[in-house]
């Protein structure tokens, strides 16, 4: 088992960031962690990385307790943090060489640069790299010791579509090598495209867990069907199998239906029995985003600041510091 948690709880003062998380993640595959701001995603990954102490519950990562055996655990996991500053005055090669030195074993730096498409930027100071290149370097830093489990916190946040696609390719390549990749994201279509399993957190609880297709299947959303027909079209057979007409503009029809297959079958009958010609047709099934919006009660998050545990930790820290003297001279 790569990750196992039982009744995992984390509170910051009166704020409950995680409320009894039970997770079992087997080795291999891509697991997406979704949820609105403040859902507890970053808190969860930081507990898995050993950066935060859980308030209650059990957690095991690669067979290690992240708090008690953090040094041993970190030989086996690779992490990309939500906000990582890479030393500006070092080259990409030097950064990877530095991080390779922290591990008992590591891959050749040149191999990592190739894998994250930065071979041509090896001697470039990191301050001259683009946002996408820096993010790929951050991924390279996580890969340098060839870990079995990779934990990425919003790896594609703020990247342009081309840079995101490059990162997707790297993540898929890692999956091909048998690695387990757990990543948080706000891009739901990204999770739908990449993930073998999606876990949705809301207000510190797991509210959905399954493959993207399974979760879409749970959606109450209806399929949308657009038709363009020439001739005297009577939609009654479609309405009879549950289609609901939303709009009609000239030859253009817009229906929604819970069972789109039945509507398509009925449409075939219509085309045979009525003197009409189908000139265009489009159908959209519900997406993971539809399901996400149904299941998450406040998709934008109650408190945008609370997205990362850092904000909550900061609040807790200032409370603690308020009781301590300013350690000045």
């Amino acid at each position: 088992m790569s990750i196992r948690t039982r009744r995992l709880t984390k509170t910051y003062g009166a704020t409950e960031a995680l409320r009894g998380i039970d997770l079992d993640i087997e080795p291999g595959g891509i697991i997406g962690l979704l949820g609105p701001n403040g859902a507890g995603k970053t808190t969860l990954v930081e507990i898995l990385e050993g950066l935060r102490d859980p308030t209650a519950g059990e957690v095991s990562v690669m067979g290690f307790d992240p708090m008690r055996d953090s040094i041993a655990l970190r030989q086996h996991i690779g992490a990309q943090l939500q906000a990582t500053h890479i030393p500006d005055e070092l080259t990409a090669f030097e950064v990877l060489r530095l991080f390779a030195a922290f591990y008992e074993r590591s891959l050749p730096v040149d191999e990592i640069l190739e894998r994250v498409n930065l071979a041509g930027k090896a001697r470039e100071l990191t301050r001259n790299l683009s946002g996408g290149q820096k993010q790929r370097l951050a991924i390279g830093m996580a890969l340098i010791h060839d870990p079995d489990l990779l934990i990425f916190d919003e790896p594609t946040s703020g990247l342009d579509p081309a840079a995101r696609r490059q990162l997707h390719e790297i993540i898929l390549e890692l999956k091909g090598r048998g690695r387990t990749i757990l990543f948080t994201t706000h891009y739901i279509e990204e999770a739908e495209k990449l993930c073998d399993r999606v876990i949705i957190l809301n207000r510190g609880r797991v509210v959905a867990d399954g493959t993207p297709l399974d979760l879409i299947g749970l959606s109450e959303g209806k399929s949308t069907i657009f038709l363009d027909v020439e001739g005297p079209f009577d939609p009654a057979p479609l309405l009879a199998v549950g289609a609901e007409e939303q709009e009609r503009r000239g030859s253009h029809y817009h229906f929604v239906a819970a069972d789109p297959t039945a509507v398509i079958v009925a449409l075939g009958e219509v085309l045979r029995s009525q003197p009409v010609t189908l000139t265009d047709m489009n159908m959209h099934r519900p997406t993971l985003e539809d399901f996400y919006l149904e299941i998450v009660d406040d998709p934008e998050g109650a408190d945008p600041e609370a997205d990362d545990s850092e904000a909550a930790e900061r609040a807790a820290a200032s409370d603690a510091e308020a009781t301590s003297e300013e350690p000045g001279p």
Partner: protein
Amino acid sequence: MSAMRGTLELARAYLLQTMRSRSALIWTLLFPQVWLFLFALIYRNVPGGMSARMPGLFTITAFSGAFFGVAYTMVTERENGILRRIWVTPATATTVVVANAMRSLVTVAASLLMQGLIAWFALDVDFGPAVWRVVIVLAFGVWAFIPLGLIMGSTAKDMRSAPAVGNMIFFPLIFLSGAALPSDMLPGWLQSFSRMLPTTYLVQALEGVMVRGEGLTLQALPLAVMLISGFVAFGLNRLLFRWESTQPLGAKRVGAVLGGLALLYVVVALLT
């Protein structure tokens, strides 16, 4: 093995960054030479001239380089998240602290060497009968000062407050120790107070080997004070190290460190 390799590689990375930063080079290497020429100008007609003031100037260079160099690196790297990124590797706090200390040792040594060479060749400063004694005494001083920078770096909240806190420590330690002004200019009670400052002991030991031409055995007391001060401060710093600013310092730990240092220097002042 990887701990040693990680420490050396981190120290190397710190040094590369220092060498590639124009502002770091100016503050580390050039700024101490401005002090050198300023001192030469001020003390040119004073008995003993620059040779008598060189121990004080070396103390200023060693303390400012070790103290601010280490402290600012710690605060900056904690504030911008580099320490946090290192935290998710197997590297320990000791790796970060020792690498930072090594970088500081090299940069302070470089600025002292440059200052010494210019003083020797351009200002005809007398370094006493044995330069190696000066080097050893300076090494003890840097050993004592680096952990004070680490403590400052661990406690300062951010880079906005660090210079203010740093200067509140720096100026008393420089002006009351006899480094910037001859200590006999101070009133008696301040001279007694100055025995509680680690910088005082570096000035004393350097004056012994450089100005009075004494051997190291006669400097045993100030050297012992600096050696013990370094060990105690390094030990106390372990209580305060933080990977990120959001980790609370804790009033008890801060109190233990400040109390520990205060106790150490009071005992030293009473014994000396």
